[in-house]
């Protein structure tokens, strides 16, 4: 009897610890927010695509890509193929060799059907992250941007406030014109641990880049009546807040950025 109980408790503890401490390495700042998109490329014997969030987020809001264009927030979850790109969807929405960004033509993505001659052109994205000649380099791009201690080491919020980056919130053919919705008020979320201050969640700050549609209803389905329950365990596993924070937006190690409510209920 006693031995069974002991084993059961040991199993329990082991399971709990396994979830909590996966020992994630902290990536270098230029790699933070990097996504290796390789699911379909491997089948077509193309190296995976290295996608850097830090560059695109400086030019476009999260909403443009994750709502208007419809990218999933999961590597391999979108089903990007050479066909969809060539037809002007996914990456091909902008990377079509015709659209302009800051008066420069955005390089085209995949041709369809693909042909072997475009070897070098393909390597622009299908580089497996190898050092290839990139138009924008992390060091030079971020040198004058305000700093922050974690993630990309860039305080993107401050950068936008100072006008150093101006993320665009819509694409000419895609977005249409709608009166913007008023963001909801900020509110406090109680933290489960008595030792942690409550969280002040700012709708205004999030809605600036996400609108309403990025988060609602898929990530956060509720209205006030249907109160949601989730924990730091799920967040650290990449759900809810963790979908963005710890992968693209400032990482979870920056506890005080969220747990900032001096009053703890």
């Amino acid at each position, binding site marked *: 009897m006693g031995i069974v109980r002991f084993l059961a408790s040991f199993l329990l503890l082991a*399971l709990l610890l396994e979830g909590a401490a996966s020992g994630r390495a902290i990536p270098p700042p230029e790699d933070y927010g990097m996504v290796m998109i390789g699911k379909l490329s491997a089948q077509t014997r193309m190296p995976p695509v290295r996608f850097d969030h830090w560059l695109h987020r400086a030019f476009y809001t999260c909403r443009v890509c994750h709502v208007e264009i419809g990218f999933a927030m999961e590597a391999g979850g979108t089903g990007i193929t050479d066909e969809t790109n060539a037809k002007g969807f996914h990456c091909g929405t902008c990377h079509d060799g015709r659209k302009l960004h800051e008066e420069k033509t955005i390089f085209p993505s995949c041709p369809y059907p693909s042909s072997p001659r475009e070897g070098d052109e393909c390597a622009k994205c299908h580089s497996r992250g190898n050092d290839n000649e990139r138009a924008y380099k992390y060091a030079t791009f971020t040198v004058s941007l305000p700093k922050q201690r974690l993630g990309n080491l860039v305080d993107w919020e401050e950068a936008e406030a100072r006008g150093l980056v101006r993320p665009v919130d819509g694409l000419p053919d895609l977005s249409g014109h709608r009166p913007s*919705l008023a963001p909801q008020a900020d509110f406090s979320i109680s933290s489960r641990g008595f030792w942690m201050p409550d969280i002040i969640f700012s709708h205004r700050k999030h809605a600036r880049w996400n609108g309403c549609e990025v988060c609602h209803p898929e*990530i956060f*389905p509720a209205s006030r*009546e249907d109160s949601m329950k989730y924990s730091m365990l799920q967040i650290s596993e990449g759900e809810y807040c963790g979908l963005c924070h710890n992968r693209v937006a400032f990482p979870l190690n920056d506890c005080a950025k969220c747990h900032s409510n001096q009053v703890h209920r």
Partner: protein
Amino acid sequence: MARFFVVVALIVAVAVTAEAQTGVKKRRPLPYEYGRVILNNYSEKAGFAPVVFEHWLHRSKFTCRLCHVDIAFAMKAGGTSVSASDNMSGYYCGTCHNGKTSIGGEKVFASCSKKYSSDDMTRCNRCHSLGKNVKPQYDFAAFTQRFPKERFGNGVDWEKAENDGLIKPLDFLEGVSVSRKPLAVQKDFALDAKLESMPAIIFSHRKHTVWNGCELCHPEIFTGVKKGATKYSMVEIFDGKYCGVCHRTVAFPLIDCQRCHTRPVEWHKPA
């Protein structure tokens, strides 16, 4: 003893990250994928690939009412249980897909037949196409090229396309539809959003009844007889009920908040 293991099981269930419906962000369907329905009540059992039905083509040619009331298709994938014998008897898909009916001057290809050879398989695969690389007769990009554009969904403003005369959806099929008296126009009305700062919804009966008639929505989808009788919120709508029956997968999607939430509310900047 048993209680102890129940507790352990519960804690394990909580500790392990389950497949979450919320807390994730999936891809959005591409314009030509939006409105796609997979039908597989009997296909695989009969040795065929499941049927892929694209709404965009049929909706440009017929009103919602024609298929969902006169031909009696359900509004849920698999809800109708269409079988090959139904089609062969001239019902459901077979109402038009019989090799004889002409729509827009074109004969509609026949659906299921009792005897079929390997030559017929090309025809079978036109519908039973899931997982097969079947080239459709109508290409989405070419078909919708001239249509006025809108964001999300199919990327087409179907309403405007009809107003501009680019599409003329048929509402009556001889021998199938009941010949009805013209519709008594219902009034538009406002629905207040539950969240104060969200603009109110202006619901247009007129816009809906042009394609749906009355029976499509009442009482199956909207049961309350008086406005405000049925209590529902965005939670149910996102779940595919009420407005979400159509506006989650076929009509313009719910992600386009401002399409419905149109009446501006005096907004005060939060302190």
